[in-house]
């Protein structure tokens, strides 16, 4: 007799007719944290079957990208996983740089690492704290939210916007980091560890939280791989696959960090893996910040590679120099031909391997662009994860997977 059966009231055979009911969870349900629908087939409170419907915010990014020059595609990537837009932006820049054969300076790489790891923290802290909300603990959510705000303020200093960041350019950043950005980063590095510790104290050994999450929505490593899981969800199942380690980009090979793994792949493990990853991210940011400070003299001012065909010239040059004006015009109008080629490049996004498959035929826009969205791929396992569990568990499984509707639907 399984654990579920013990909790389930067993009626004598034939006392009432067997009946299941259908429940529409979503598309606009406060507990789904996004626009997608789950049709659940319930036997009492136990889930017999589930079917997901996605596509409510499909915006045809792949089609749109076929008529845009490279730099105009960055804002589209913002809107994939909007909890960690900078990672998407950087992933796209790195893809373009791979196709165009651009080598970025080390300082740019380290600054990118800082921004990407900040984005990872902001992504994970939302997911972990929302799991708390769904198990009935609101405090943790509000507590860490202040620090997401601080991360957004850092983005704001670097690129001027907060949620959909459009941060960086092909070849580097649009401007150098200013002192306020670094001061806020120091403040974050100083204050956030205490907050994260407190947050973990609230949840990790919390009886109610553990009972609600342990053994719920578990998946074996084998099934997780077969379902194409990546990122924290795969690592929670015990596979140490991390794009940052397997195919390093943006000089991740220069950093020391651990890849935390779980064992059962259930909601509790996913929660633990995400929390542990936040600690690793903090350590990476510290290392990167130290490396950035080590640059002296002219090197300390470098914030982009020298690629005049793709990187916008300075405004004062545009007004005074002919060549700069020509480049400015060519870039803005999308007049530059992209070399032809086929490239696949992936970064470790908040949810896993975020891949960009870009085909160029030598025109000014991509011939074809495909996004490998981790969310879309692992959400199909949802039916298997929630089968035979309770309705209230379905909500926690959903929040522990960190499903982002923008990434699902592209």
């Amino acid at each position: 007799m399984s654990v579920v059966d013990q909790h389930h009231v067993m009626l004598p055979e034939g006392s009432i007719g067997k009946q299941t009911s259908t429940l529409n969870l979503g598309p606009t349900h406060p507990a789904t944290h996004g626009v997608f629908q789950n049709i659940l087939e319930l036997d009492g409170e136990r889930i017999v079957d589930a079917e997901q419907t996605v596509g409510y915010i499909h915006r045809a990014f792949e089609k749109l990208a076929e008529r845009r020059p490279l730099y105009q595609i960055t804002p589209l990537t913002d809107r994939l996983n909007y909890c960690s837009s900078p990672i998407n932006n950087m992933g796209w820049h790195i893809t373009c740089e791979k196709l165009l054969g651009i080598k970025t300076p080390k300082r740019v790489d380290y600054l990118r690492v800082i921004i990407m790891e900040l984005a990872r923290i902001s992504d994970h802290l939302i997911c972990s704290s929302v799991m708390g909300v769904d198990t009935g603990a609101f405090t943790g959510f509000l507590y860490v939210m202040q620090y997401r705000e601080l991360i957004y303020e850092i983005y704001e200093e670097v690129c001027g916007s907060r949620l959909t960041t459009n941060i960086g350019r092909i070849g580097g950043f649009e401007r150098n980091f200013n002192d306020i950005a670094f001061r806020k980063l120091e403040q974050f590095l100083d204050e956030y560890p205490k907050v994260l510790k407190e947050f973990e104290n609230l949840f990790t050994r919390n009886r109610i939280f553990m009972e609600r999450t342990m053994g719920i929505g578990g998946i074996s490593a084998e099934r997780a791989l077969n379902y194409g899981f990546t990122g924290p969800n795969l690592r929670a199942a015990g596979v140490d696959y991390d794009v940052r380690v397997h195919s390093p980009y943006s000089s991740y090979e220069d950093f020391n960090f651990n890849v935390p793994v779980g064992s059962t792949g259930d909601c509790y493990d996913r929660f633990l893996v995400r929390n542990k990853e936040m600690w690793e991210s903090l350590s990476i940011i510290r290392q990167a910040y130290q490396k950035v400070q080590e640059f002296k003299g002219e090197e300390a001012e470098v914030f982009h590679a020298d690629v005049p065909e793709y990187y916008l010239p300075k405004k004062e040059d545009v007004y005074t120099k002919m060549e700069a004006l020509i480049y400015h015009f060519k870039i803005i109008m999308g007049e530059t031909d992209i070399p032809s080629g086929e490239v696949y490049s992936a970064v470790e996004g908040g949810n896993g391997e975020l891949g960009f498959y870009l085909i160029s035929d030598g025109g000014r826009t991509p011939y074809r662009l495909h996004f490998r969205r981790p969310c879309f791929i692992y959400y199909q396992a949802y039916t298997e994860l929630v089968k035979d569990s309770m309705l209230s568990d379905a909500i926690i499984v959903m929040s522990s997977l960190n499903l982002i509707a923008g990434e699902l639907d592209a």
Partner: protein
Amino acid sequence: MALTNETIRLRLQEKFTGEVTGFEEPFGLLTFSAPKDSNLKVLQFLYEDAELGFQFLTDLCAVHYPERRGEELAVVYHLHNLVENVRIRFKVYTNISQPDVFTASKLFESANWMERETYDFYGVNFVGHPNLKRILNVDEMEYFPLRKEFPLEDQTRIDKDDEMFGRGGTNGFGDRWDEEKLRTISEAEQNDSKEIL
């Protein structure tokens, strides 16, 4: 022994003599193609062979090449051997009039939705798929929107001259204007303005 692109190529050529062709290595990623009837055989060999072990399907999508007669649609698989950390790209071409390709969803659960997405946008009919219906678009849609014959902008617009900025010619779909229709429209407009005058 580390798994190299050369080893994979030799193993494939040995197993599928002459069937697996078009070996390339753009940006170091081994790329090859096979006839569409044997896509499943190749995938299964790559999956089950002890040495190759490509057991992780990273990505599956399609590409439309209208100029290639008889092989207009390409289905592209990105596979990953996580142990050796080697990636490969495998392509299968099919004609657009009867785009039947065997499903990989028996081998990889992850292919299920990715194939539905590919069907949704390109109309590739995955034979044997358990639930081949649209996934992101509405069920009532009657066309496959990512095919190249569907231009992004409204084709009846005549106020915009994209040729000026060179974007009209991209991908050989620049001459989307129906010259005949365009003339009728502008003539009609001229008549309108005459009437106003």
